[in-house]
């Protein structure tokens, strides 16, 4: 049975530095996925992630277990990647889309979907996989924390430092974008005059 984060961290703090490798192996894939959603480039994501893990190691002795280790880890990964993205933006390779938490509810103009579609088809999975990768970084990162890390809204607030309303707005927008893309690519819209939304 694999050790829990707490046990592994205890080993590291007791002087077994090599145990940090176990901690890295345990979290690297999910953390890399988050880094990729923000930076959209494998090389940059891996460099930022390496930097984040080194920061985690250096701050490990001061971690007070006020949150779970993974929440704390993803906060460092998130901040490191946002900082790397900011540096890249200054160089002119990156753009951050800003959002307003209050503007999403009343502006939905979306077609209804056909009620008889098969939502379990491989084609739908393929499209969603592709569209998740295409989400703008601000939505993609929040959506990744919500889905892959299985975090609650409150945990996402802790990781990103964003207000709860903004987190909810970003998650909703991400889902709306995926829904729109799916309807467009699969031609799922009901061909009739809209009744609602």
């Amino acid at each position, binding site marked *: 049975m694999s050790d829990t984060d707490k046990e592994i961290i205890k080993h590291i703090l007791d002087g077994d530095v090599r145990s940090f490798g176990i901690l890295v192996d345990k979290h690297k894939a999910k953390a890399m996925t988050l880094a990729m959603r923000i930076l959209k480039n494998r090389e940059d994501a891996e460099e930022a992630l390496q930097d984040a893990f080194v920061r985690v190691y250096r701050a490990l002795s001061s971690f007070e277990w006020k949150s779970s280790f993974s929440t704390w880890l993803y906060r460092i990964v998130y901040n490191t990647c946002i900082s790397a993205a900011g540096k890249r933006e200054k160089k002119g390779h990156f753009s951050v889309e800003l959002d307003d938490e209050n503007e999403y509810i009343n502006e939905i103009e979306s077609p209804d979907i056909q*009620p008889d579609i098969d939502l379990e088809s491989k084609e739908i999975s393929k499209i969603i996989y592709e569209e998740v990768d295409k989400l703008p970084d601000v939505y993609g990162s929040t959506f990744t924390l919500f889905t892959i890390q299985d975090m609650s809204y409150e945990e996402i607030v802790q990781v990103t430092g964003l207000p709860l309303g903004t987190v909810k707005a970003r998650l909703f927008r991400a889902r709306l974008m995926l829904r729109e893309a799916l309807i467009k690519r699969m031609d799922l819209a009901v061909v009739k005059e809209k009744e609602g*939304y």
Partner: protein
Amino acid sequence: MEHIPLDIICKIADEKAEEKELDQYLAHIEQCKICQKEVELQRSILKISRNKPLVTPSKTFTDNVLSEVIPAGKKKWYEWMLNNMGNVFAMVSVIAFLVYVLSLTENTDLNQEPSNKNTQITEIMKSFKDISLSIYEYFNKSINIPDFPISGMGTLSFALIAIIILVFIDQILSKFLKRLKILS
């Protein structure tokens, strides 16, 4: 028929809708196939996204992280030796050279005219002795180090201290270059 707003659909799909909202909309969902499908679609989007394969970093990623953090922590002696092969080799070479030269000086009178056979070696030894003496005198004037004979063990001790200082400078320089990302 007015459909349920999408933000409420998402809440229902996530099972995060408040009781009040559920009471208000559940009856509609039971009757409306389009809203039922919307709830299903939102659940599917989440389910599929959760099953999306993760992105894995390169195979050397963990080793790269460890190589960054281990110098800050404890490094085993053989790992230190492996990472400082160049320094260790240089130290051994210098010590070997010193031992060789000193073993020759004990049997050679440097003030005599060099014989034809060992002219070059004797010249090198003489220069080495002169340089050692100059360095020793320079430091003796500045920091008043204890007296010790320039030949034999004295020179060897002096050379060892010099090597240790050089390695120390090398370590600081390496860290500085790594920080500037000139060295990996």
